């Protein structure tokens, strides 16, 4: 499987990417390459730079130096709204949704960006059905449970039909059942879309990952299959004292 993946073209790439906040390097020279159709997981201790990396990929944070290439095009100076137009969708770590309006309207705003009026309606219905959220479509999002809000955000990203989806901790605050459903959903979406997931839940990563990239202190420490990552001495050292990898 990894051989065929290796033959596919690189869709998202960073070269010597750096982000300094004052004297601190949150991202200190990351060379990262993602191939079309991959389901990549990013792991690493808190403060390793995973979320900063995601924010740089989506122009929410400007890199200090280095470049980001999407489909061969440099996007390191792009605006956030151009990122979605190019075909990158992101679910941020903190649910980034419209809490004051209905589930339906949340999804419509996403769908309407890509589609005409009628197609957007159909897309909302399709997304609601796919996420089994039809029963709560009329409810104001802020009143829903955390897991449901996460799904709505996932649905919004799906409705954009991006080529690459970035998911920052998609299962945070979910029950085991919800986590399993999310894993199934991610696998299903991955059939047509390239996905990168940041997660702390190792059980979840074992369920979904092809290749795992380990971040540590703003650098890539290791990149391999989950089995080999778990056997990697450096990685074990970084995680020593924390649960999960052992």
């Amino acid at each position, binding site marked *: 499987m990894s051989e065929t993946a290796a033959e596919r073209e690189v869709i998202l790439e960073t070269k010597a990417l750096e982000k300094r906040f004052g004297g601190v390097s949150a991202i200190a020279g990351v060379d990262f390459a993602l191939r079309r159709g991959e389901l990549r997981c990013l792991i690493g201790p808190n403060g390793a730079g995973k979320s900063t990396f995601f924010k740089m990929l989506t122009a*929410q944070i400007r890199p200090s130096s280095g470049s980001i290439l999407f489909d061969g095009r440099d996007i390191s100076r792009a605006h*956030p*709204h*151009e990122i979605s137009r190019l075909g990158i*969708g992101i679910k941020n770590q903190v649910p980034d949704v419209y*809490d004051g*309006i209905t589930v339906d309207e949340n999804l*419509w705003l996403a769908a309407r*960006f890509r589609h005409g009026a009628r197609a957007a309606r159909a897309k909302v219905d399709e997304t609601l059905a796919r996420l089994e959220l039809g029963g709560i479509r009329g409810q104001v999002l802020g009143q829903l449970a955390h897991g449901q809000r996460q799904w709505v955000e996932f649905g919004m990203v799906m409705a954009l039909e991006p080529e690459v989806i970035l998911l920052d901790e998609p299962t945070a605050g979910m029950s085991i059942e919800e986590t399993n459903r999310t894993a199934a959903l991610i696998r299903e979406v991955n059939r047509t879309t390239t996905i990168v997931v940041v997660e702390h839940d190792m059980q979840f990563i074992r369920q979904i990952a092809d290749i795992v990239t380990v971040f540590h202190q703003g650098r890539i420490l290791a990149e391999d299959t989950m089995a080999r990552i778990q056997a990697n001495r450096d990685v074990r050292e970084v995680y020593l004292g924390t649960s999960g990898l052992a």
Partner: protein
Amino acid sequence: MVHGILAMQHPSERPKWWWWVFVAGLAAFFITMPFHLEIFVILEMSRFFGMAMLALSMGFLWGFSGILSFGQTAFFGLGGYGFTVLALNTGETTGSVFFAVALGAAGAGILGYFMIYGRISEIYLSVITLVFTLILEKGIRATSGDQYVIGKVRLNGQNGIPTVPQLDVPWNTSVQLDINWFFWVGAVVMILVYIGLRLLLTTPFGRVLVGIRENERRTELLGYDTRRYKLGAFMLAGGVAGLGGAFYAISIPLAHPEMFSLGRAADVIMWVLVGGKGTLIGPIAGVFAIEHFKGWLGTQGVGQVTLVLGAVLILFVLVFQRGLVPSIGSLPGLWQDRAAIGRRLGEAAAQARRPVRRRGQARRGSGA
């Protein structure tokens, strides 16, 4: 129904039939006024329509796109002066009203472009708009000399321009509208602005604006260039404020630096806060309630009108946080809850009265 009109929970939904009934009722309410009210009341209320348009511009911008422009009065004043100067020069009033709208929108466009595309944070935007209106006020106040003339109109500095022309009939410009007709035109224009803004919220443009209010970052990440939407809303609000300015200047009749002033700028905030932010009928109600209250206070010999008004504002911010209109709007909800609570109590009582057969539980059951 009441809730839908007054609290406006789902602005993206098309208004239902009863909203149109409400609007028709509102129109009828205003249109019949000159028939049963005295002329000085009509004169006083004519002033409110221009103010209500100013309040609507703020209510729309602040309530639905989250932009707090503390200096909406800048565009209000521009509209008032723009109308007056052009109408006095050309002798034509209908076109001058449109010019007032355009001037308000253009002023907002220029200022808004630098603020919004410069990615200035919300609080600085509020401060800059306020400073902008104060600069305009100072500027206009300094035009008392003979050299400050536009066309054949002297700007008159502190004193303002007292010769604001009355509106005339668009198809027969030799006939001026009398007091009643001006009242009707003001009411109808205000209601049309209200309807227009309400319907705008159901369009993709309006829905994206509400999205920006809720979460601008998310809206950007969905792909919308939020700067364009915000600038659009800012210019629209500027145009509406300019329209209000023209009507206000005609109603007094005076184009005065006071239109740009800090006091007036604060009035707008108060109208919207007291009437109800996040609604469109709230700002209108706020104008009529507060301005009428102000007038009444003036006749009561309180002396400290401003002080009393300040207390009222504090009361509203503390007690009716959502404003007058949404608070009234949620009363029927409370009433329904009350009915539901009553029903539940009744059921419990019925349950308690039911004879309980099981031995030893009878007493406890009836006591429940």
